[in-house]
């Protein structure tokens, strides 16, 4: 099936363009936008990891190594589209417009972190696996019923393809031809379990065949192919062409979460040949005259400041409000819940 679903690439590990015909699609603005966002979420990710080590936030699942997949796909979206991410997709969420301070809040155990900026259709990260695929199918179905051109994108990992909701979401989307992008990041491990223990198929992309929808396998560390193939799938969806399954092959550089030790299940050689997606883009920029050392340094500086300010804002955010425990479970909390609240608040005051 790898023959039917060859891995598409636009640049190789050395940052060389593999097909000159793509040159027209890669303008300077796009190159810089991709670089800016990839570096931005990398800065966020490294900071989050370090905050966890210092005990300043809780357990955190790093996405290092998956920046091309997350940024390339998120930049392909339109402002009115829907995003259904997982807990490892805060890079995609930040790129699509999630608030960075609130993202830190989320990883510090604060529910405020799930609230998207007004007008941003970002669903809270799915914590169980694959449950967001039917949601994405449903939201896109609603857009289709309303007659808009908006689409939805669902992010999920390789482990998610083993879940029933993977099938149920893909199946609904294909039967009702909803404008949904199923964006898989195959980072090859679900915590400790490798992809060959998840499935007997050679590729994830080939699963599209069973739903009668387009599927494509791409190099998920090549930000250009991610961006352009996602864009293509989105355009098809906007114009009534239904859902697409995209398998972006990538590599989780670090641990599953800060509570995980990957040396228990991966040896040092594994992943040693994977070129970091940001390094690859830098090589491309240097090869093609897009690199400006001074400008790059100032971007790095600017991003460092943004992240530091977000951390500061997170740490000086008002303390969690106990009443919030009770106030958002129902639109109008039932009397028995109000009584529990009243009693507990009274107890706190004693």
């Amino acid at each position: 099936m790898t023959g039917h679903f060859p891995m598409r690439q636009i640049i190789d590990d050395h940052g060389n363009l593999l097909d000159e015909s793509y040159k027209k699609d890669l303008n300077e603005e796009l190159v810089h936008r991709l670089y800016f966002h990839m570096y931005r979420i990398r800065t966020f990710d490294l900071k989050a990891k370090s905050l966890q080590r210092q005990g300043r936030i809780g357990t955190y699942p790093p996405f290092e190594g998956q920046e091309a997949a997350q940024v390339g796909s998120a930049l392909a979206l339109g402002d009115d589209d829907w995003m259904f991410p997982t807990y490892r997709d805060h890079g995609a969420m930040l790129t699509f417009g999630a608030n960075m301070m609130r993202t830190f809040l989320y990883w510090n155990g604060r529910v405020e972190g799930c609230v998207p900026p007004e007008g941003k259709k970002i669903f809270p990260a799915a914590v169980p696996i694959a449950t967001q695929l039917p949601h994405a199918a449903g939201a896109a179905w609603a857009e289709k019923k309303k007659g808009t051109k908006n689409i939805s994108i669902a992010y999920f990992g390789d482990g998610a393809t083993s879940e029933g909701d993977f099938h149920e979401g893909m199946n609904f989307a294909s039967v009702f031809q909803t404008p949904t992008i199923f964006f898989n990041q195959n980072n090859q491990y679900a915590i400790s379990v490798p992809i060959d223990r998840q499935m007997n198929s050679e590729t994830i992309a080939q699963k599209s065949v069973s739903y009668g929808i387009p599927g494509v396998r791409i190099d998920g560390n090549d930000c250009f192919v991610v961006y352009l193939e996602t864009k293509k799938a989105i355009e098809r969806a906007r114009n009534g062409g239904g859902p697409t399954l995209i398998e972006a092959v990538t590599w989780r550089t670090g641990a599953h979460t800060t509570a995980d030790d990957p040396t228990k299940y991966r040896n040092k050689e594994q992943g040693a040949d994977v070129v970091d997606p940001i390094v690859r883009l830098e090589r491309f920029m240097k090869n093609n005259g897009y690199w400006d050392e001074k400008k790059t340094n100032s971007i790095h500086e600017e991003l460092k400041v943004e992240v530091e300010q977000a951390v500061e804002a997170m740490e000086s955010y008002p303390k969690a409000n106990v009443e919030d425990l009770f106030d958002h479970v129902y639109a109008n909390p039932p009397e028995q819940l109000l009584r529990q609240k009243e009693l507990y608040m009274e107890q706190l005051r004693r």
Partner: protein
Amino acid sequence: MVISTKNLTETKSMTVIQAINDGMRVMLEADNTTLVLGEDVGKNGGVFRATDGLQERFGDDRVIDTPLSESGIVGTSVGLAVNGFKPIAEMQFMGFIYPAYDQIMTHVSRIRMRTMGHFSVPMVIRAPYGAGVRAPEIHSDSAEALFTHMPGLKVVCPSSPFDAKGLLIASVKDPDPVLFMEPMRNYRASREEVPVDSYSVEIGKGKLVKEGNDVSIITWGAMVPVVENAVQQIENNGVSCEIIDLRTLYPLDQDIIAQSVEKTQRAVVVHEAQGTGGFGNDVVTSINDTSFLYLKAPVERVTGFDIPVPFSALEDHYLPTPKRVQEAVEKAMNF
């Protein structure tokens, strides 16, 4: 309390299933964001005919035959609901709801809390429940306690045609998700005059089915007629029974229970689900909390046994019978 702005004098004799069908008809007519979706709900009109004629009338983009996929039905309903539609999703039998449990537990009931009200997924999940109709195995579960233990969800369970329509309409209008349990044993068991127009029966309010002085029997759904039947026998022996149909399990109408128990000073709770972990225990707890010192006897429970709902040949032995209710009342009276 019944809420309506319309003239409710025009009525029609309906069974529970007809009233449910009419409730959906009313809401599909009133609001074109209302959708009905599920397995066999379209062309076939539902295996119980609950959605009979609705697809013909409202089209197949509003009354939708879905793949055979409970998690998919509820999961896509989450997406539809968060994006402006009001799904009425049918689980063909409550015994088949379990594949959707994750979606209901993790997402449907929680999304409002997780986003501090930014997103909500108001929807109605209809589920025919209960034993006593000689259905094949696994078709007869009464799983309300799995869902009353799920903050963020409301659990409604009417027993009569009038309440079925009014509560279904209230459920569709509710800003929060509602699990709507339908006692399939009552579907065609009785008729009642039901208004043709739209009206709501308030969620969270029980109903005094029959006044009495000596003992309160608190029940819901398919057990209401069983209790009524038992009470006829009991009252022949000179014991006056009050019957409360809870109609909604969460939020629970603690006031109607307290009021009745404080008057009669004895209580029996009757439900068909298994006793351990059953919702009847919450009713007993509620009585404990509000009215303990009024009681002249411990609260009795009549429930299904702690076994999986049996195959139909023995289901009559699993279900509470009028005789078991009668004996529980005697026990409470003779304490």
